[in-house]
């Protein structure tokens, strides 16, 4: 049997190797072992993100400084949920291109395309809601501008991670320790 490594492998730096090891660390595997647990992790991440953005928007709109503490308190569980999703996807969106193989690159392209489609719908919904609020509800569009922009930006930033977390398939059985 011969080793037939790729030129892509040769391009990996120590940073890539370290990141690859972190993203493929199986310590937290029970947290994302089943589709139900992965859905729960993504749902928790969406909820924590929404709560953080809502706290930030509340602080901005109502001038309530103590909401900053709420945001700070949400950071730790948000980071934990992010780690669970990254573990489930094996760093699909965190690793550099030359640290991924052909299947992962194809998967990443699929995830980004789907996330782009969902973000487009979300932007369309935001435009419709703001326009409706302005025309029918006498809402000052200017007041909503910053919170809505922040919410849409965060959704655009994190949508690929949520889609990737939901798209993960179960681990193939018969692990390597068998051989």
């Amino acid at each position, binding site marked *: 049997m*011969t080793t037939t*490594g*790729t030129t892509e492998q040769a391009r990996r730096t120590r940073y890539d190797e370290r990141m690859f090891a972190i993203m493929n660390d199986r310590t937290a595997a029970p947290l994302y072992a089943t589709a139900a647990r992965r859905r729960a992790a993504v749902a928790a991440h969406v909820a924590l993100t929404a709560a953080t953005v809502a706290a930030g928007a509340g602080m901005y709109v109502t001038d309530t400084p103590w909401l900053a503490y709420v945001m700070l308190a949400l950071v730790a569980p948000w980071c934990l949920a992010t780690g669970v999703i990254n573990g489930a996807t*094996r760093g699909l969106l965190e690793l550099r291109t030359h640290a991924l*193989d052909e*299947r992962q690159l194809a998967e990443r392209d699929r995830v980004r395309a789907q996330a782009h489609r969902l973000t487009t719908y979300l932007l369309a919904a935001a435009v419709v809601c703001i326009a409706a609020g302005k025309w029918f509800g006498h809402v000052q569009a200017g007041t909503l501008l910053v919170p809505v922009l922040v919410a849409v930006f965060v959704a655009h930033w994190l949508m690929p991670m949520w889609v990737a977390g939901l798209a993960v398939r179960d*681990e*193939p059985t018969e692990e*390597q320790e068998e051989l």
Partner: protein
Amino acid sequence: MSEQVHNRLAMVRAERKVSRQALAEAVGAHYQTIGYIERGQYNPSLDLALRIAEFFDLPVEALFSLRPFRPLTDEVYGRKQ
């Protein structure tokens, strides 16, 4: 044209006592990708298929086929389909 590429990877890998991890490292793929190929959930590129075949010192058609493989016992003992 068939979209499914059939393979004997799991069988050959078990026969040669090679782990998914070892094969993946040798051919520059993720070990999950080897599992997905074995389960028929991912069709490898020609490049990857050739690298896997080269690793096992086998012709690529011994591992991958557009048609289902005959059971090995049939091939060895010559039973006709």
